[in-house]
């Protein structure tokens, strides 16, 4: 039987406002967070008959309790999707939702699905990183993995060793800018467009409504950052201020075969070009996006110069700067994370990949001169993941130079 690959498009993406662990979602279930995202996707796309969803892939790093029970399937049922819609759970640590997207996208390209929902959730207040883990003793006895690999902050300090030019001042400067960009994005109403308000239960205070990211600290300055501790290494560089926090949140995206999207009248907001996951030394986890991006570019027959919009996850500022330095991009390049990033918004591990994509889709909308963009992130146990997307709104001629300035 002859096969033909099909184009995969990103139709829509939403997320909950992110919370600080033990904060606004302290009494809210993890599965409820992602369920609300799925329902909002369906509400925002009324021309999609719910029974046309062929798969629901939901990622969570710690798949126990309210993040367990094959969360993709149970979330689909609890979101009111028809019983005929299947679902599954997926885990690639921080790149869980990204992997949910690439996995279902592969199924769409192959012809197994026409429409899929991919998302992720992490309620780190309820499920701290490392909850219930049981590392194989061979990891130590046979020195298979440097023990630093299990402590993400240490891997970030190790990355500073690899890139000695990335100073504490540079990462702090980056972090302050991330906070400012997110504040500006909120002020402009950019991020709210894709937020799903969440009713927050509190036995003490009564019900509330979460409508913005709780971790934001727009008042952050270089001075406040300078005073923070470096918990992962004495006199180190990684602080709570230049890294993402411990957060709760969920995301979900709607993907489709391009023809199906047009048939159903669904918006085509990004077109998948290529994706790649690559492993690196686990103790220098943050380097992962570099080889992943190289590989995805080469698969697509593109170079970094073809990429004019970036959404880079900010697990640590150093990891973003290492990526930019490698590709010769300035720390303050306006094409990179124009709405700010995880340092300000938060990084509920397995959910973040879809946040990057949702924001890249907004970049595409706002910048029709851009043809290609990418979403990339580092991944625990030493990996990177990159997805390259094409802008369907592209007007046909590249009008920016490689620094993002208009020609």
């Amino acid at each position, binding site marked *: 039987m002859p096969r033909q690959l099909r184009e995969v498009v990103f139709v829509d993406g939403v997320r909950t406002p992110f919370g600080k662990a033990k904060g606004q979602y302290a009494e809210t279930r993890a599965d*409820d967070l992602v369920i609300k995202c799925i*329902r909002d996707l369906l509400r925002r796309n009324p021309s999609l008959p719910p029974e046309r969803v062929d798969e629901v892939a939901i990622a969570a790093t710690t798949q126990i309790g309210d993040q367990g029970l094959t969360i993709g399937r149970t979330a689909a049922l609890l*979101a009111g999707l028809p019983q005929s819609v299947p679902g599954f759970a997926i885990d690639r640590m921080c790149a869980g939702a990204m992997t949910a997207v690439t996995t279902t996208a592969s199924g769409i390209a192959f012809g197994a699905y026409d429409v899929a929902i991919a998302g992720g959730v992490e309620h780190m207040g309820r499920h701290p990183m490392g909850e219930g883990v049981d590392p194989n003793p061979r990891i130590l006895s046979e020195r298979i993995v440097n023990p630093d690999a299990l402590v993400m902050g240490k891997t970030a300090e190790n990355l500073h060793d690899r890139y000695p030019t990335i100073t504490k001042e540079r990462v702090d400067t980056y972090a302050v800018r991330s906070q400012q960009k997110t504040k500006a994005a909120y002020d402009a109403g950019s991020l709210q467009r894709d937020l799903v308000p969440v*009713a927050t239960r*509190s*036995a003490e205070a*009564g*019900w*509330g*409504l979460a409508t913005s990211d709780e971790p934001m600290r727009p008042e952050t300055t270089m001075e406040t950052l300078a005073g923070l501790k470096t918990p992962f290494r004495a006199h180190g560089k990684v602080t709570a201020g230049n890294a993402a926090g411990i957060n709760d949140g969920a995301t979900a995206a709607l993907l489709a075969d391009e023809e199906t999207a047009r048939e159903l009248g669904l918006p085509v907001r990004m077109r998948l070009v290529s994706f790649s996951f690559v492993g690196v030394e686990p103790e220098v986890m943050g380097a992962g996006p570099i080889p992943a991006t190289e590989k995805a570019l080469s698969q697509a027959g593109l170079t970094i110069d073809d990429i004019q919009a970036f959404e880079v996850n900010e697990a640590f500022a150093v990891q973003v700067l290492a990526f930019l330095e490698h590709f010769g991009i300035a720390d303050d390049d306006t094409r990179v994370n124009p709405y700010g990033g995880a340092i300000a918004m938060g990084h509920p591990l397995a959910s973040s990949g879809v946040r990057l994509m949702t924001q890249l889709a907004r970049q595409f909308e706002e910048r029709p001169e851009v043809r290609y963009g990418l979403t990339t992130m580092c991944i625990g146990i030493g990996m990177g993941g990159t997805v390259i997307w094409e802008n369907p709104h592209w007007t046909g001629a590249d009008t920016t130079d490689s620094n993002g300035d208009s020609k």
Partner: protein
Amino acid sequence: MSTPDISALLARAEEISSDAERVTAAHLRKVTLPPVDGTAATIGLITLDNGEDHTRPNTFGPRSLLALNAAIDEALADDTVTAIGVTGKPFILAAGADLTSIQGGGPDAVRVVAELGHAVFRKLGEGGKPSFGFINGLALGGGLEVALHCTYRTVMDSAPALGLPEVMLGLVPGWGGAYLVPQLVGADKAVTLILENPLNNGKTLGGRAAYDFGLADAVFGGADFLEQSLLWAADVLAGKVTVERPVVDKDAWDAAVARAEGIVQSKTGGASPAARKAVELIAGARDADRDAGFAAEDDALEAMSRTPELIASLYAFDLVQKRAKRPAGAPDKALARPVTKVGIVGAGLMASQLALLFVRRLEVPVVLTDLDQERADKGVAYVHAEIDKLLAKGRGYNQDKANRHKALVTGATDKQAAFGDADFVIEAVFEEMSVKKSVFADVEKVVAAECVLATNTSSLSITEMAADLEHPERVVGFHFFNPVAVMPLLEIVRGEQTDDATLATAFATGKALKKTTILVKDSPSFIVNRLLGRFMGEVGRIVDEGTPVAVADGAFAGVAPMPPFMLLSLVGPAIALHNNETLHRAFPERFYVSPALERVVATKKGSYYAPDLSIDPEVEALLEKPESPVVLTAPEVRERVLAGLAQEAQLMLDEGVVAAPEDLDLAMITGAGFSFWNGGLTMLLDIAGISEKVNGKRFH
């Protein structure tokens, strides 16, 4: 924003409040809604939460109302708050008034609670800021009324129960419900909500149905109910969504009130003061303004608090809510043995009804046995046909369930093969001691040593039936009421030798069958049939002495579910006669066997009535024609019969037939349809002063 000064009322509420109240807190939180067209509204969202889980719903006593009052005042006073919302803890808005505050305080306290509820709730509708009731789950009585006072309402589609059950409890919806509901959805629907549903076993509406009914302006799914409600509220406040409600037709009032009167007559015989009062309130709501409507409710609640029926109704409510769930005298549940297969001796109509009940509720193999395969097969065919009827009705009963249940029911003649691995065998054969004894002797040969042997006898001695068995300790009485699928009562009879494990298994099985179980001592005709036997015996004697059937029939409106001779016709004259004869043998001095009834039975007449509900002339001809007839009036008939019942009830307590008068009442409510608002039987006898007259003391 002008609310009347209610400080005097608040002070009185403080005085009557008690530490015993489980206070429902009113947490006020300012919630800024996402902007609509550039403007963000801030709502003062009040969460009602008594700090317990969903099994103990929020209720409103004086302190809870004071807490809500404070929260509403704070929200009204805060200029940054543009609207007020009220919602509840997860799954529950509120279940209404704290009944203990009504039971304990007397008319003055009830008056205070009534006025306080109005004063506080009215601030939601009249406080000067738009308000939203977000009905996020259970909302009964005052729990629904708090939302009814709001300017707008949303409801969760999966909310389990919305309603105004007050009339069932001897009250009226007196915190605005009786006035606001007809104003909102019209008089006819108000009659349904306030009278018809409560008198129909306390029927309530689910969330979706309540929306369709018109109680809410919007309905949202459970997964994001509060979010969607708040976003909807933002749209309403911004004028983006306009709420439109049908105009209430004032010309429909008279017809609705007439319908209400019909319901009250047919369901209560006019004997429930609360039902009558509710009709009055609905009728008055047509032209009353808010002050007058709410004042009428205050007066009504106070009036109800002076009726004995309120105490009796609350007593009955407590019986069916609590005592029914924890049967007095039942042994430790842990002693119960699992029932994984049921045997039924006999395959007649009763046996087949039992088979259907057991297979639906226990979902274990059920074997019907009879003398020949043809009869056994007929029993199985009956069950299969009933299952098909259930399937045709739908309601969640699907083909897989039907297949499963049908496959579990079999018919056999070989008891050894059928009962060898059964844990529970019940006989439903002819009501004759020798027959039953020989059946049990047969069964005992083939069953395991611990298999429970249950008898559905309505009158025979369990002790005697078990006497000659090798293991008499495993015999227990399991007395159902006809029709088995409908009647909630199951009398569980302990023989002299019945052991705790057998009894515990019987109670566990009864519970699994979803029946109300009551422990009864082995005694003639147990509870319901003994009391009904006395009742029918006294009525029969009075008619035989010369009082017309119609007078006797008219004497018990509001006490028994139907006139005595209609009851007799429903039970079947032969069965009634048999019961009377059994009781007469046991207690000849008190139980009367009517010669007229014997003659009616001899003609095989099934009923005293002709199809047009007049007395059948052929039956009329068979009645006693005393030389010097004694013709009593209806009240005299009632008094004399109730006196007989007072005597019998006291004797039953003295004999230890049941643990307490509460069990007699629970049995008469659930097994004989005696009235809720009378508290069954003994409460009625106390209230009517008959207990003291007959027994020299009250039951309670």
